[in-house]
C-alpha cells in the first residue's frame, strides 16, 4: 500500500488521461450513435442499410482491431493519424457509437405505438414525431443502458495503452516494470482508480433503472 501512496501523483496523471479519453470519446459516441440510431429507424432504405452495416460490423469487431486498423493500416491510404490521444478518441468513439446506437434504437422501439400514432394523427412530420414525442420518452428508458455503455467505455480506454497513450493501465505497466518488487501492488493501485469510476456509475444505473421502471 505504501507504494501506491508514494506514487500517487503518477497514478493521478494516468487517471486524468483515462477520464479525458472517456469524456471526449463518450460525448462524440453519444452524438454519432444517436445519428446512427436515427438512420436505422428512418424510412429511407439506404440510410437504414448504412446504419445496420455500421452497427453490425463494429459490434462484431474487437476494439483492438479498430485501433490496429487506424494505427497501422490507415497510413496505407495516405491518412496518417497523429499517434496518441486523438487517434485513441477516434477509435473509441467509432467503436462505442455502435453500442450507443443499439441502446437508443431499442429505446425508440420500446415507446408505445399509440404515442407515435397520436403524434402523426395531429399532423406532426417524421422529424417532429421523432424529436418532440418519441425521443423524449425513449431517453428515459435509454439512460440505464447508456450508462452501462459508458462504464464499458471507461474500461475500454485501457486498450489505448497498447497504442502509445499513457493512461491508467500504461502507467501501471511502467510503474510495474520499474518496480518489480512491488509487483502486484502496483496494479492493485490501478484497479482502485478504475473501481472509483465504474462501481458508482453502476449503482447509479441500477438506481435510475428502478425509478424509470416504477414510473412506467
Amino acid at each position, binding site marked *: 500500500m505504501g507504494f501506491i501512496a508514494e506514487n500517487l501523483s503518477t497514478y493521478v496523471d494516468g487517471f486524468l488521461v483515462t477520464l479525458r479519453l472517456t469524456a471526449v470519446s463518450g460525448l462524440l459516441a453519444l452524438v454519432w450513435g444517436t445519428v446512427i440510431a436515427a438512420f436505422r429507424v428512418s424510412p429511407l432504405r439506404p440510410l437504414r442499410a448504412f446504419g445496420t452495416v455500421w452497427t453490425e460490423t463494429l459490434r462484431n469487431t474487437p476494439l483492438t482491431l479498430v485501433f490496429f486498423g487506424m494505427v497501422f493500416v490507415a497510413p496505407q491510404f495516405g491518412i496518417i493519424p497523429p499517434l496518441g490521444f486523438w487517434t485513441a478518441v477516434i477509435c473509441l468513439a467509432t467503436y462505442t457509437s455502435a453500442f450507443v446506437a443499439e441502446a437508443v434504437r431499442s429505446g425508440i422501439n420500446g415507446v408505445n405505438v399509440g404515442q407515435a400514432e397520436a403524434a402523426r394523427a395531429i399532423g406532426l412530420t417524421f422529424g417532429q414525431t421523432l424529436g418532440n414525442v418519441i425521443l423524449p420518452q425513449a431517453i428515459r428508458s435509454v439512460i440505464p443502458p447508456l450508462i452501462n455503455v459508458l462504464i464499458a467505455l471507461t*474500461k475500454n480506454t485501457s*486498450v489505448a495503452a497498447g497504442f502509445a497513450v499513457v493512461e491508467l493501465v500504461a502507467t501501471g*505497466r511502467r510503474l510495474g516494470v520499474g518496480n518489480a518488487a512491488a509487483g502486484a501492488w502496483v496494479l492493485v493501485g490501478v484497479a482502485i482508480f478504475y473501481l472509483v469510476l465504474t462501481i458508482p456509475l*453502476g449503482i447509479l444505473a441500477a438506481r435510475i433503472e428502478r425509478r424509470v421502471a416504477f414510473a412506467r
Partner: protein
Amino acid sequence: MSSVLYDAPGPLARRRETIGSVVGAIVLAGAIAGAIWYAAGNGVFAADHWDVLYDPPKGQSAGAVWSSMVVRGLGATLRAAALAAPLALVLGLVLAMMRTSHLAWLRVPAIGIIEVFRGLPVLLMMYFGLIGMGLDTYLAVAFGLTVYNMAVISEILRSGLAALPKGQTEAALALGLTRWQTLIIVQLPQAVRIMLPSLIAQLIVLLKDSSLGFIVGYPELLQSIKNNASYFGNDYYVALFTVGFVLFLAVNLSLSALARRVQRRTPGARQVVVAPAANGTGPAV
C-alpha cells in the same frame, strides 16, 4: 414496413420514399466510389499490395503466409478463448450459486468478487497475470478473460434465476426438496436455458477480447499480421488486415447467428426481458 415511427406508406409517401432512396443510394454509392478512387490513387489496389496472399515476394510460399495467419494466428486466438470459456462458465456458475445462497458467508464474498472483476478492464487483469503473477502470455491472456467473464456470466445466470416464476421454487420446496436440490434440479436447468442467448453473446465478447493479447505480447492473429507486414513490407498491411478482419467477422457473425437460432428455438426465451446488468456489463460491449 410499419414501426413506431410511421404507418404503412400511401402512394404519395411511397413515391417520396422511392425518390429519397434512389437519391440516398446515389449519394452513398458516390461516397464509396470516391473512397475507392482515393484509395486506388494511393496504389492500395495494385497487385504489388496484394500478391502476398497468392505469390509472396522474398521466395516465400503463399501457404506459409496463410498458415502463419490462420493456423498460428487465429489458432492462438481460439486456443486462448477455448481455455478461458469453459473455465469462465464453470466459475461463473459457482459464483452465481454462491451469490444466490441464503448463507451470508457464501453470498458476501461472491458479491465482492463479482463487483470488483466486473468493474475492471480485461487488459488490466491480463497484466495482473503477466506482471503480478508471473504467468506466460498465453496463461495471462486466459486468466484475464476468465476472471472478467466469470463475473459477467454469474450475473447473467443470476438474472436468469431471478426471472423464473416463484412457483417453481415454492413447488420444489413443498415437495420436500432441499434448497440445494431445488437449485440444481429445478432452478438452474431452467435459468441456463432461458439465458442461453445471453451466454452465447458473452462468449462472443470473450472471443473478441482475446485480441487484447496483442497488447500484452501474445502471438495471436493481429500479431501475425504485424509480423508478416514487417517482414514483407508495410505496403501489404491492407491485404493482410483485410484477411484478419474477415476472419474475425466470420467467426463472430457465425456465433451471433447461432445465438439468434438458439433464441428462436428456446421457448420462453423471448418473454424474458434481459435486464441490463446493473454494473457496467449491460450489452455485449
